[in-house]
């Protein structure tokens, strides 16, 4: 029997699950190898499980979703988070530093009808996650590699070093050194193919923190480029801002800033 794959969505933009459909060259092959048992963006029929692999997109922001992810976990053999929302809480985790009630008032005239949690949290804060795919959005090739590995009954190989290595392999010139651009590359996880420097700009961290990022040294590098205080906080508190060690570094800078004010 073909392995049964499910794709679930929580709070997200759909961009990560879209990468399945963006794999134009592989899509029909994929469909011949697996059964999409649940993938509402692509298929009307929805089966209840159990699933061999569940790809989970999106973060947990409502009480319902906090319950739903537990059900998903129970019906799933391998649970793989796809993207910054599911893996790190996503851009919507910016609410975690604010009053969500105030956020509701900003957006909705009748905030009392909004049912939402005060935080946006990654899936791993709710259930056990087997593999994490970083990125906002995830990289299509990494996604295909993970599917292929799991079909071959092998653990996926997901590197955790910084963007810089891929950047130089690609023949980019370092934007920090040659142009003084701020760049999160040295502390950001590889996976995107070093896109931003190839497009003449600094990395803004959409693949989350690299393993063993030296945040103290990086904070000093930012400061040497004139990025201090809330400017530095904003750089770290973005798409993957809720994940350590970026969260801790930004919180520490923010705290310092408040004390100085």
């Amino acid at each position, binding site marked *: 029997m073909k392995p049964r794959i499910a794709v679930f969505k929580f709070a997200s933009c759909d961009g990560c699950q879209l990468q399945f459909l963006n794999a134009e060259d592989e899509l029909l092959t994929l469909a011949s190898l697996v059964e999409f048992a649940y993938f509402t963006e692509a298929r009307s029929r929805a089966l209840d499980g159990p699933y061999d692999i569940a790809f989970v997109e999106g973060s947990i922001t409502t009480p319902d979703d906090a319950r739903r992810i537990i059900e998903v976990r129970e019906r799933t053999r391998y649970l793989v988070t796809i993207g910054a929302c599911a893996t790190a809480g996503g851009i919507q985790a910016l609410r975690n530093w604010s009053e969500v009630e105030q956020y509701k008032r900003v957006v909705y005239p009748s905030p009392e009808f909004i049912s939402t949690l005060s935080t946006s949290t990654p899936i791993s804060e709710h259930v056990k996650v087997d593999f994490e795919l970083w990125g906002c959005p995830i990289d299509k090739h990494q996604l295909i590699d993970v599917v292929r590995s799991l079909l*071959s009954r092998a653990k996926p190989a997901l590197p*955790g*070093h*910084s963007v810089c290595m891929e950047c130089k392999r690609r023949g980019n*010139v370092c934007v920090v050194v040659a142009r003084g651009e701020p760049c999160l590359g040295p*502390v950001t996880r590889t996976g995107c193919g070093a896109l931003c420097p190839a497009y003449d700009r600094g990395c803004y961290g959409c693949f989350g923190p690299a393993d063993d990022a*030296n945040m103290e*040294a990086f904070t000093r590098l930012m400061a040497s480029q004139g990025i201090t205080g809330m400017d530095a906080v904003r750089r770290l508190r973005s798409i993957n801002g809720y994940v350590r060690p970026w969260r801790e570094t930004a919180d520490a800078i923010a705290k310092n800033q408040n004390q100085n004010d």
Partner: protein
Amino acid sequence: MNEPLKLKKAALQDLIDLLRREEFKVLGPVVREGSVAFHEVREVSDLPIGMRDAQEAGRYRLTPGVDGEIFGVVNGAGSLKPFFFAPHEILLEVRREHRGFKVRDATPAAPRLALIGVRACDLAALAIQDRIFLHDKFRDAHYEARRKDVFFVAVNCTRSAPTCFCVSMKTGPEAASGFDLAMTEMEDGFVVRTGSAAGERVVSKLQLPTAASEDVAKARARIDECASGMQRQMDTSDLPHLLYDEVDSPRWNDVAARCLSCTNCTMVCPTCFCHSVMDVQELDGNMSRRVRQWDSCFSLEHAHIHGINFRPRIHDRYRQWLTHKLASWIDQFGTSGCVGCGRCITWCPVGIDLTEEVAAIRAQRGKH
């Protein structure tokens, strides 16, 4: 033979044309993204004429230079390394067949390269990579295929960047070997020497005149001046022992606090050779490629084995890098792993400078 010749500036185009006619792909320093790297050159005007580079630890800028000077930019982020040791390449293709599989070597498409504007340190670095990939127990067929039949036009340095220290490493500023032609730039042209039969053939086709003795003397003086004026130095005396003995130097912690472990220094270094080997399958599971790509001892995965990481701290990884470069490389390959090009200094985003680190380790030797 080997008498210095003169190539007028205007005739540099003839050299390029001749090489192109002989079916070389001619590469030279070309401005890209705020730096120079070796790219295809068809016209002399593709070269960074009238430009110079301003380099310091952690900073690189191209600046207006001297009018008409063709090789005013000393070097950029791109070394020769990617042309022979590719950043990313397919080594094998393995295809499923019946109950087994069939393996095919993927031979690289290697264009015939002519490289102009190559510096002494670049050639020295290439000789080191040759030592690693060609003269060891195992020869690397892909490197070998790319390395064959390359034509090198070296340029002797008459100006150094503040990050250069080739004099300390005895690799420059004058190209000693490994070139077909070596040129020294003057206001009106180049003093040219040949370094190989292929170089001889080329100059005879160009019918270059003999250089005037004043020109030859002036060229010599320029190179000497460059050497004596070099701003950076590294004391290499007793080098393997210094680093071997100072395995516990407090400086390792000091530099580890500054180092981002980003791998930039190893990526731009013209001699670093570490690479990872991966097998990447197509989705249908019938075909797999063995891929190799540049790796670095600064990545956490580099020293990871199942259940243990031998170099978990940045302290360990920086020490590995510096010790390998300057010390254990000598035991392994009979030569230092550093040619003094200064790239790792310039292109380190936080400006860590190995000459300074070595000096500090030396200064604290045995005192802790």
